[in-house]
């Protein structure tokens, strides 16, 4: 199956790319990895008149820690996280996530930022970004702005990126001491969209209580969503079986999945709870806190 015809540009600079996006507005789509866009175009579900290919902007392919922030540029591939010893050692939630995006070939081309901008309801990076309280850096003709992830993910396939703008970076806070996280995903097979997915990121205080917490679920509504109820169940006290159970139940209550070949609403809601529970258990385990099952 072949895409409908379109015009194609491959700018050499970011300014050129932004200029093209401004010029064509809603008729243009950014082409980074293309691992979601091109399949949609092959089915003619997406029919952009113009593609702006940003793959020549090699400067955007970075993954670096600076000033308390892990900055991932627009062209950093999913696979870069899987193969990074920095990510493996210091960002376990991101490392977990990177290992289950799509399949190992698609990951070599797909990008983290592109995935966030695509905002598929079953996408993984949105869930993890919420749990980490990430921020997206958006640039346009008017300048650069930083958007918190909770404001960035607007609706299915819709983000805060406006016409003539492009997301150029996602920033994850560098972890404080006693911070860890974990990602859980149920998929029927590698490469399937998630049946259910959940991320948990936890920081323990010196007294062993939960100082900071981020919990999010995906494939459970129009967009990945923060489970605030789960976070408050855990924040401020020592991790406990009851608190984890309450967090899981909060996820079940909040989950608003669509029934499809992957499962009924009832099943997916329950899986949201199970995966939040398992993500928390794994995160606490990594912090040396066990016995919570």
């Amino acid at each position: 199956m072949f895409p409908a015809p379109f015009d194609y540009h491959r700018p050499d600079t970011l300014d050129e790319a932004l200029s093209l996006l401004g010029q064509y507005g809603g008729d243009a789509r950014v082409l980074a990895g293309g691992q979601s866009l091109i399949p949609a175009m092959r089915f003619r579900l997406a029919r952009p008149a113009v593609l702006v290919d940003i793959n020549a902007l090699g400067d955007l392919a970075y993954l670096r820690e600076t000033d308390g922030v892990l900055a991932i540029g627009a062209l950093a591939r999913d696979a870069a996280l899987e193969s990074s010893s920095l990510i493996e050692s210091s960002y376990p939630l991101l490392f977990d996530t990177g290992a289950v995006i799509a399949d190992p070939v698609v990951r070599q081309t797909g990008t983290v930022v592109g995935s966030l901008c695509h905002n598929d309801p079953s996408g993984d990076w949105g869930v993890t970004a919420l749990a980490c309280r990430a921020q997206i850096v958006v640039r346009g003709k008017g300048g650069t702005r930083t958007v918190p992830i909770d404001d960035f993910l607007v609706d299915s396939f819709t983000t805060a990126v406006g016409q003539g703008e492009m997301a150029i970076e996602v920033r994850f806070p560098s972890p404080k001491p006693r911070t860890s996280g974990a990602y859980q995903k149920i998929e029927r097979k590698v490469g399937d969209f998630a049946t259910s997915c959940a991320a948990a990121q936890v920081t323990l205080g010196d007294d062993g209580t939960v100082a900071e917490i981020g919990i999010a679920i995906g494939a459970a509504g129009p967009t990945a969503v923060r489970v605030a109820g789960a976070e408050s169940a855990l924040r401020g006290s020592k991790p406990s079986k009851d608190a984890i159970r309450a967090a899981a139940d909060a996820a079940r209550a909040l989950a608003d999945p669509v029934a499809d070949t992957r499962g009924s609403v009832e099943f997916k809601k329950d899986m949201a709870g199970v995966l939040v529970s398992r993500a928390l258990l794994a995160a606490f385990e990594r912090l040396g806190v066990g016995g919570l099952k």
Partner: protein
Amino acid sequence: MSTTTDSTPQTHSMGHSMKRKEDPRFIRGHGKYLDDFTLPGMVWMSLVHSPYPHARIVKIDKTAALAVPGVIAVLTGEDLAAHNLAWVPTFHGYDKQMVLAVGKVLYQYQEVAGVIATSREIAQDAAELVDVEYEPLDPVTNPFQSREDKIILRDDRENKTNHIYHWEVGKREETDAALAASDVTIKERIVFQRCHPAPLEPCGILADMSPNTGRLTLYLTSQAPHAHRTVVSLVTGIPEDKIHIISPDIGGGFGNKVPVYPGYVVSAAASVVLGVPVKWVETRTENLTTTGFARDYHMDVEIGASKDGRVTALKVATAADHGAFDAAADPTKYPAGLFGIVTGSYDFPTAFTELDAYFTNKAPGGVAYRCSFRVTEASFAIERGMELLARKLNMDPSELRLKNFVRKDQFPYPSPLGFVYDSGDYHLTLRKALDLIGYDDLRKEQAEKRKRGELMGIGISTFTEAVGAGPSKHFDIMGIKMFDSAEIRVHPTGSAILRAGTKSQGQGHETTWAQIAAEELGLDPQNIMVEEGDTDTAPYGLGTYASRSTPVAGAAIAMASRKIREKARKIAAHLLEAPLDDVEWTNYKFQVKGQPDNALTMQQIAFAAYTNPAPDSEPGLEATFYYDPPNLTFPYGAYIAVVDVDRETGAVKVRRFLAIDDCGTVINPMIVEGQIHGGLTEGFAIAFMQEIAYDEQGNNLNTNFTDYLVPTSLETPHWETSSTYTPSPHHPIGAKGVGESPNVGSPAAFVNAVMDALSPLGVTHIDMPLTREKVWRACRQATTA
């Protein structure tokens, strides 16, 4: 003149895991598959599909499509009807199938029009612009709704009913009486879900009507090129000598490339009319939604037994969903294929089975996906039934089987449903499996785990299948008997060419056929060139499917080789100046009895056949054999699966899977093992993740690889394999065939294992695919009960 020679290299090749001769081109990317062929002036065809499962066609407006630059023609059912091509017979012979819809559409994605254009992209662009007006009708989406005949689907048939046929075999009254008199009975509705073989290479055709030769050449993804040639001739009226079918390298068949598809007919017709080559290659979506599906049997299984576990009777009543046309490629007298094998490996005193087939608003087909003509369905039914019986009797499932197996001394065994099983030693094979898997230890482990509420299961499947169709007395496809053929010609310098009527789609015939002939002729299999698939040169055969190639064509190869050997013996006698009766074939040589130094190799004979032929016979050294098998063959096996179930998520982990197969003589153990690995993986997929489901509005829910799931290397378990050896007494080399055994036997092993795991929860049966949700639900219902 007598000579002595050193033995030629690698003459003894049967049973050797010889590396495949076909691989060098595949590993270099030089395989020639259908879409790799191009011809000068070639144009492309793209199909238009119906979005509705059931609708009248009000009108088709081609205007916008024809206006696209590069579009050459737009064909509809009406256009084809003018050439008598609107309908083609299905392989079953009982029915016919629309090529392009005429009057109404009968399944979602049915082919409605064909666009011919100068590029693939333009053909697709224009296909989008063909404007079809439909008047939707209510759909019929399952056989039970269909049999009510409230909505009649087939206006074209004389009898206005959705009921296609009734088939039965066995003794109804005797079976009913035996069931009624049994101490214990089980009865269960067992569904084998609709699924699809989904080979990685989609179907396609390159049709070339040449004005120079007046011949229609069809490059075709065909598992049965000669049968296709005959059908094309019958349908088009073009004489068979003017039709040339070339089936090139095929990227997987599994039964998907047996039927004649609308895309083939439209392309061939277009080529004849336009006088240019026309290529059509389907998309994956078209493959999954329109080409031959598999299974869709709803089986009511009843088994009776004495209280000490001796079976008394088997009754199976089936409702078969054939989709919109009966395109199940079955032998004529066997509308339900070889379903009569449903008594399986057990000695039932009496049995009865009946089947009613119905039309529904779904894609046509039924016989595909390594099914051996419905043996997969039958095997699943009996192996699930026996498992349910074991549970009811509170008997170990292996004990129940051992108690009821046909015994070795009962072979050849006439089954109550009309088969004569050739050979088997079921007790030996199951015992070997139980031993190798460590069955007793596994049951102990299971008992421990059950105390802790952990769900572990062990599932057994001891299947017997019937393959090698088949004897001319009983088997034909559209009237053509199901023999197969081999033609072997030995060259002067001692190598040979072998052509057969079969068509490999990955089974390795270029190697295995050479091995058979090499063994029979004392030649090097590296120097026996094997060709299949070109109808101009290959002898007539019925093709490769239903595991028939080794039983039938393999036999033909052995018999043709023996004809050659017999002629060679005469030449040897002439050269050795000995009486014919004194010359024997020993140790891959012709020697005068008792004089091993007075011997000749086949190489020497071959040379002499051309340089010094015997005075009373023709020069040359070749033979053709058309083999009509005296019976089917009955490969069998014992499979054991061990699973662990996560009750929180319903996930099932297959911890171990052991497959012991007995296919009689094995030509190439490496190739057989590869077939087992592949078939087990397909059975695993069917058991856990595959289904072509339609909703109540007739929408196909599994139209591409995102929703029709093929397991990856990560989900696929590690397979443990072994074998026992019970040759077929009626086959020239004792071989039974094996390609489909793993798909026949494994689904029940997986399901039995999961049911065994869930049995403490009181769950007895769940239909495939055993998705996480189904298992999760079963666990929840049990805990809340």
